[in-house]
């Protein structure tokens, strides 16, 4: 149907082998192997499931991060740590251990965190603040909100049903959280690759002006992406509550920078317009396994950090290099 051009770029022989997603998955398996060799039982099925459970929370936070990064214009969400904490806090306080309040609590979390995300979006679009600045400032505001809500003493308790849902095995020892993650991942991938919304998101990230000229409601879409990140952060907090049972202040802080790293080592460009959620999933799993391996090997905190940092740099060197100014 379409003519061939004279000088076709020939495809590399194993294109998938250079792809960040494959690299991340392969490295994950490699690390599992290393762990199993050095500390037998590291790659036991039960252990892998618990690793995946830990990765799921990071992966869900990073889902929102993926959306705002894909949307371009230096998209980034530093407030996710706040929305996760806030999500857990609101959920815990609305539920107070009662199953009946499970759904209202979820809706409350989605509403509040969605609004916070949308405010980020408004700041980024209408006031045109750099996302880093807007979401960093919002992080501070959420910190204040958390103090105000808890008065320094965290409160709230998960509903038993939620605890069951997250931790109890649903099938072959797989805890309920993992199907939830898989479902969200499938949905997100479907949206990104098979819907006009997904096309519009990639178009927005690739060339905002061209997207507007092609008929994309760019401002509304970008606000929607930040709202989406807020909601996904809130949902992660909600699920975290089901994992821990009670509320900790600042439970989300640990996810802020790792969520960005997971997105990047999954092959999504911080410049926007290119990448996938599957990559982020791979990134989240790789990061979790690496952390766990370093802990299992009983390396002291200093060594653990240095190895972790060095690994990150090596990964960046592997496929994170940007184009040279001189071609």
């Amino acid at each position, binding site marked *: 149907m379409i003519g061939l051009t004279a000088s076709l770029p020939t495809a590399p022989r194993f294109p998938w082998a250079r792809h960040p997603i494959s690299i991340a998955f392969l490295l994950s398996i490699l690390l599992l192997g290393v762990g199993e060799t050095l500390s037998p039982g590291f790659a036991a099925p039960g252990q892998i499931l618990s690793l995946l459970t830990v990765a799921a929370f990071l992966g869900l936070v990073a889902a929102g991060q993926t959306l705002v990064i894909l949307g371009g214009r*230096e998209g*980034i969400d*530093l407030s996710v740590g706040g929305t996760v904490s806030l999500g857990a806090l609101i959920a815990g306080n609305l539920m107070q251990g009662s199953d009946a309040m499970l759904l209202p609590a979820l809706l409350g979390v989605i509403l509040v965190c969605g609004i916070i995300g949308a405010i980020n979006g408004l*700041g980024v679009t209408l*006031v*045109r*603040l*750099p996302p*880093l*600045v*807007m979401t*960093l*400032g*919002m992080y*501070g*505001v*959420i*910190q*204040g*909100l958390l*103090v*105000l809500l808890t*008065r*320094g003493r965290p409160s709230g308790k998960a509903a038993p049903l939620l605890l069951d849902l997250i931790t109890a095995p649903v099938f072959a020892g797989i805890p309920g959280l993992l199907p939830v993650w898989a479902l969200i991942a499938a949905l997100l991938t479907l949206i990104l690759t098979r819907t006009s919304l997904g096309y519009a998101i990639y178009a927005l990230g690739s060339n905002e002006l061209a997207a507007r000229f092609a008929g994309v409601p760019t401002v509304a879409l970008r606000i929607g992406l930040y709202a989406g990140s807020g909601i996904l952060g809130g949902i992660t907090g909600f699920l975290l509550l089901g994992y821990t049972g009670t509320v900790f202040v600042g439970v989300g802080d640990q996810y802020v*920078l790792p969520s*960005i*790293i997971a997105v*990047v080592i999954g092959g999504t460009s*911080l410049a926007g317009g290119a990448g996938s959620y599957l990559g982020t999933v791979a990134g989240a799993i790789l990061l979790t396994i690496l952390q766990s391996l370093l802990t299992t090997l009983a390396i*002291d*905190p*200093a*060594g*653990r*950090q*240095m*190895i*972790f*940092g*060095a690994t*990150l*740099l090596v990964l*960046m*060197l592997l496929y*994170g*290099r*940007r*184009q*040279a*100014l*001189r071609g």
Partner: protein
Amino acid sequence: MILYRRPWVAALAVTLLLLLANLAVQPSLFKPAIMLSNLSSWLPLILVAMGQTYVVLSGDIDLSIGAIISLVNVSVVSLIGAFGGGDGALLLAIVCGFAIGIGAGAINGVFVAALRLQPIVTTFGTGILFAGLALAIMPDAGGTVPDRVFETYAGPLLGVPVILWILSLAVLFVIALGRTRFGLRALAVGGDAQAAFQTGLPVTRVRILNYGLAGGFAALAALCLIGETATGDPLLGGSYTLSSISALVLGGTALSGGTGGAIGSLFGAMSLGIINNVIFFARLPFELQSLIQGIIVLAALAVGTLVARR
């Protein structure tokens, strides 16, 4: 036109307004002793923010700068002990501290500019590395330095407080640098790296130098922190990373690079300190303090960004 290339004018105005607000809730603000103690607690952030400004001006960012502070802090405290604590040892340790800071910054620069890695993720990675190194050098906060160190730091030199000397020298350095060819070229690199390269500017070198500068300023901040706390702490620097970015944005430097300046960051960092003061002295209910501070900082960041853009 008065604001073009002088974004610090707006930052200065904001700082003065905030100072008035501070005075309203804290009448003793302008007593020399109070001012001096304020300044000494703001000084580390001022210095870090000034350093971070250079990296941001050339279009990059340094998320490892807090870890560099920690690293220099524990290294210098350990070295003072190792060298024996004499005057020569102190001087040598200080020189080593600067070398470590500048070296760490240059490593960032090489990764980001020469090896062309994405700056946010890369400096996050080197930051973890530097923090790990700091932990390896000194696993727990501790170590002591000779009393002379903090006595000198808190005292006067030729009738002027040492803190003021440090600040003035830093400001003079920044002004002088801004008038050189390097200052102009850093702005050009941050404005459009490809264009600067095609113009024949040494883009990679400029970016590495800026990272090195940031490391140097971080080292100076770390030394000031030793002067103030007289001890080493491997977790000391962490909070300075994001604060330094807030400060420089408040000071009118654009995160996209190419426009702004270190003088603005000086006022930006002071503004953050003054906001803290105002919140503290305004006797707000405890549970509201943090929220109000968050909102004020967010609003200030918005204003800073708008000023940088104009």
